[in-house]
């Protein structure tokens, strides 16, 4: 490679294709401009680096924005879904309370004479309580039913197979009732009075618990 100092600087840089042919290519640059060109190159490099950094930051910001926006949408949507699911469960409980007393597992049928609406057979409910595991989720997800005797008032003794019928609360699943709808019903049972079976009906409140999502 030949370099002339004044007035011109000559670079003979081989190109791949030229090198193969054995020829050389000549570049002529004014010697006074070398420093300027070097500075310009450095500036361009810095600018390019800045651009790349800007691009990287921009990409990061855009990605972050979309991730945050997506998360916001998802959180908002899931909250809405939970609300609508709870509303549906509440509506189900509200409608269930009007029919559950007349469903075959609870209703008096003709056990106490003629058929009556909103009459619950306490003996049958206690029999159902023994088999309640088979009825899991039958009336809805995590739906629990509780029957409380309200008149004549005695106390708040929870019924089990040992103390029935001398008790006040029949809790089918044995779980606490949190969010509920209730209805007034007649709670009837057979009672042995002086060696004779008699029908005994009392006033009670039936409560249906529903799942809150």
């Amino acid at each position, binding site marked *: 490679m030949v370099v002339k100092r004044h007035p011109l600087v000559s670079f003979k840089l081989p190109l791949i294709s030229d090198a193969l042919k054995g020829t050389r290519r000549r570049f002529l640059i004014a010697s006074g401009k070398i420093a300027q060109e070097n500075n310009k190159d450095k500036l361009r490099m810095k600018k390019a680096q800045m651009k790349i950094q800007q691009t990287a930051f*921009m990409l990061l910001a855009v990605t972050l924005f*979309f991730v945050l926006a997506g998360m916001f949408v998802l959180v908002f949507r899931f909250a809405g879904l939970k609300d609508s699911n709870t509303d549906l469960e509440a509506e189900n409980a509200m409608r269930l309370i009007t029919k559950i007393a*007349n469903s*075959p597992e609870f209703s008096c049928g003709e056990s106490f004479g003629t058929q009556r609406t909103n009459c619950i057979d306490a003996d049958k409910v206690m*029999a159902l309580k023994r088999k309640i595991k*088979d009825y899991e989720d*039958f*009336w809805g997800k995590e739906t629990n039913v509780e029957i409380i005797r309200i008149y004549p008032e005695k106390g708040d003794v929870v019924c089990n197979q040992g103390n029935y019928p001398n008790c006040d609360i029949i809790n089918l699943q044995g779980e606490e009732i949190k969010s509920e709808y209730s209805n007034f019903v007649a709670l009837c049972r057979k009672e042995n009075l002086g060696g004779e*079976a008699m029908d005994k009906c009392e006033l009670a409140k039936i409560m249906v618990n529903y799942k809150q999502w």
Partner: protein
Amino acid sequence: MKGGYLQISFAWLFAIIVGAFILFLAIFISVKIINTEEEVQTLEVGKEIGILTNPLEMGFESLKSTSFTIPTETRIFTECNNEGNFGRQLIQISQKSFSKWTETENYVGFSNKYIFSENLEGKKFYLFSKQFSFPFKVADLIYMTSDNYCFSDAPEEIKDELESTNQDNFFTEDCPENSIEVCFENSCEINVNYAMKYVEKKSEKMYFDGEPEMYGDALMYAAIFSGPEVYECQLKRLMQRTKQLSEVYNEKSFIVAQKECNSNLENDLNELKNRAESLTSSTSLNSFSFVVDDLEKKNDLAECRLW
């Protein structure tokens, strides 16, 4: 002649690529959200339909009816399975959105409902229910329809019962052209042999043997308004509940016996339970008649009636 060329700065190129990516992402997410929304809406409609049927299952009236209207064209698919202690009633909804039917794989399930229907399409749907007693009340069967039905040659008691539903789509005379014919004497699309106790639909027979006021007629309507597959599946579900109720009544008989009030129905209840458990199809339904009738009579005469 100078050759022209397009000079695009880096900023422009970046804006175009990122812009295109953002647009693609926005469209993709929008489509996904719309699909999810449609899915959620169909599931909510399915659940609403199930909840709306609750008032049909209360009281002692032999027949109750109602209707509901959905603002958009809707297809309702009812299916059932026999899993668990009670099986499940499955409802699937598809709604018309931008002239296309939404596709969904999801069902809404209920353990305590028995809906008999074909696959339905329309905006207005009619429901009526009838009690199924075997011999104690097992469930209220719900019949859901949207098409017009023609019962021109039905027996008078059936005509009276259908007219009492006040459903606009049931015709006992002057049937419209597009109505589905249900024949009791002649031969047509749905043939009911009231004497032999079966309904024939697409060459398949569904049996409904039993006392008309107890469960016979309830099962006849079930066979008329549903397909053979749904009918047989729901019948098995009814037997699953009969089995569970037999056990509850058996427990009850022990509880009341402690109060010196005997029913002496334990053996008969066990017999019913075993038969209900072993029912495979409606063809063996006639073997129940004497067990059910016997149990009904014994309960009526018992010192302590269980139901």
